[in-house]
């Protein structure tokens, strides 16, 4: 599956948390590939483990982790084998960075935003403060924030501007991969569309790839080259964006797509009955089986990942 064009390749990534009730299988055997200057969308509903996936990729782990393994190849190198110090020096915020969920509220209120954007440069590349601030100013131009905002504090900026600052902060060290965790969920429609314009431009102008984590199917299509659908901790479909938005294969993807209200087409949205399973004790076999209109006897066994003309689907329907 991996070709020379693969920047990030994830295989069997697994992250379980210990709780009083037992292990929570938040991320369970996740796989996908990401090419250079590409964007992959991780699509899933709340509680499917998509934010845990971001944490697993950047090793920002809480203390109650009970299992953390798998392979993550970044430019051919398995970063899961690195020790913490190597990882900190070579990966986190150097080659892979994050725009956290509700990023606009994650800025430090007592530091000027320019200093915050410059900080990763000082820490990771050891450059002088003036030089780092220059770099920050360049990043501000890329994301469309006026350069004189460098001296402002977070509270002086609107939500959209703060979000842009958080994006600038993730880009300042010129990482190869930026993970965006729900980058626009708290923003207004117009601001959201503006941020996506910025991201599209950045993808064209800079050597950067995006992992966009979101539950919003409609806006995810603004950036997607590829789509990976996550359900109950697992990836159920990885597809090319054009084929996915035209006709997804996995029954869950199909139903998810049918639940999107459309502005420009008069198509009554349909909902999925039932609820996703608990990740404490997920059912054996296909995790979507209980809600699936197409389930049959086979579904009580763990479905294989089937390759259908380049689309990977974890479903018995496509296996013969």
């Amino acid at each position, binding site marked *: 599956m991996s070709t020379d064009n693969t920047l990030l390749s994830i295989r069997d990534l697994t992250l379980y948390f210990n709780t009083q009730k037992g292990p929570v299988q938040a991320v369970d055997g996740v796989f996908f590939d990401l090419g250079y200057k590409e*964007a992959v969308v991780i699509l899933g*509903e*709340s509680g499917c483990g998509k934010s845990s996936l971001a944490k697993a990729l950047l090793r920002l782990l809480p203390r109650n982790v009970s299992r953390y393994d798998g392979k993550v190849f970044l430019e051919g190198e398995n970063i899961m084998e690195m020790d913490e110090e190597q990882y900190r020096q070579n990966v986190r915020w150097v080659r892979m960075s994050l725009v956290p969920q509700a990023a606009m509220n994650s800025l430090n209120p007592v530091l000027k935003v320019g200093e915050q954007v410059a900080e990763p440069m000082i820490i990771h590349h050891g450059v002088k403060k003036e030089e780092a601030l220059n770099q920050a100013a360049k990043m501000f131009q890329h994301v469309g924030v006026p350069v004189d905002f460098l001296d402002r504090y977070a509270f002086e900026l*609107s939500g*959209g501007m703060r979000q842009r600052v958080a994006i600038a902060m993730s880009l300042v060290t010129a990482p190869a991969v930026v993970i965006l965790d729900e980058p626009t969920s708290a923003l*207004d*429609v*117009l*601001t*959201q*569309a*503006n941020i*996506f*314009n910025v991201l*599209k*431009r950045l993808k064209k102008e800079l050597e950067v790839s995006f992992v966009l984590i979101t*539950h*919003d*199917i*409609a*806006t*995810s*299509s*603004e*950036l*997607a*080259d590829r789509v990976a659908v996550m359900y109950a901790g697992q990836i159920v479909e990885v597809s090319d*964006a*054009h084929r*996915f*938005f*035209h006709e997804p294969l996995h029954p869950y993807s199909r*139903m*998810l*797509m049918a*639940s*999107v*209200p*459309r*502005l*420009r*087409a*008069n198509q*009554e*949205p*349909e*909902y*999925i*009955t039932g*609820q996703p399973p608990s990740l404490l004790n997920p059912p054996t076999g296909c995790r979507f089986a209980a809600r699936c209109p197409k389930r049959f006897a086979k579904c009580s066994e763990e479905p294989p990942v089937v390759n259908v003309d380049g689309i990977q689907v974890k479903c018995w329907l496509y296996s013969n």
Partner: protein
Amino acid sequence: MTDTNREVLLSIDDLHVWFELRRFGFGHAGYVKAVDGVTFNLHYGETIAIVGESGCGKTSLMKTILGLNTPTRGKIMFEDKNVGELTGEALRDYRSKIGYVQQDPFGALAPFMNVQRILEEPLVINGIKDPAERERRVRKVMEEVKLTPADDFLHKFPHMLSGGQQQRIVIARAIILEPKLVVADEPVSMLDASVRVEILKLLRGLQEKYRLAVIYITHDLSTVRYFSERVFVMYAGNVVEKAPVTSLVHTPRHPYTVALMDATSDPDADNALRYRELPGGEPPSLVNPPSGCRFHPRCPKRIENLCEVEEPQEFQVDEHLVACWLYK
């Protein structure tokens, strides 16, 4: 679609809701003009949507309708009673005729009350003293919102329910007094895509069954189409366009409505291939809104020497009422 034969339930006339700003706690420092001259009628059994971005005044408008804010100027008539003048018993009676569905279901439900107590509360407040009668009505309303069997839920606390179930409880509480009007403030914005549709369909089902009038407040144009008859678009404290929903989504007239539509995505891979054309800037401060048309600093179709000077009147274009000089 604007059925003139239907009787008016709620009539809002030139409503202004201003909040005074004070300097050092007592000196006057201006007003936040949250709602600035809004006029409309709502008929029995009609659903309308109020669409706008955060800070456009839609929540202030709703709170004023609920009697939580006092109008600065203008009046709200509900079944021929002036809401601004109601006090005591009359105000309580008015409030029992409007249901309120909050945005964040978890925040709207008291964490220390179980479902039964939450649903009984409005009945207790409105003087239904017979516990058997209360229980009967609680069970009936649970059936209405499809939380069955009721016994599985009555003794649960809000944190034991999923987001969708919590929102059903909020809806059940809003309709238990059999109101004539339900005000739903972003009822699905905190929910997942698939649950969102389920809750909206539930609300629509109840609306049709009981001929409820519904005011649906949202920032999401794509859900409006499946849920309301008429849409009011708000910008910076004003209603800029009023139109029947299908006509609005096919031919938006006001430049701001056009911008909102352009910014709304449908799932389509081609979206990634093009930039969206959007007005720059941000919504204005409501303390000192721009002169003339409030959208003029961001408007691509601004007419010099007119839009920044004079406030636009409402013009009739087909079935739309548009507050824009383009349609003079």
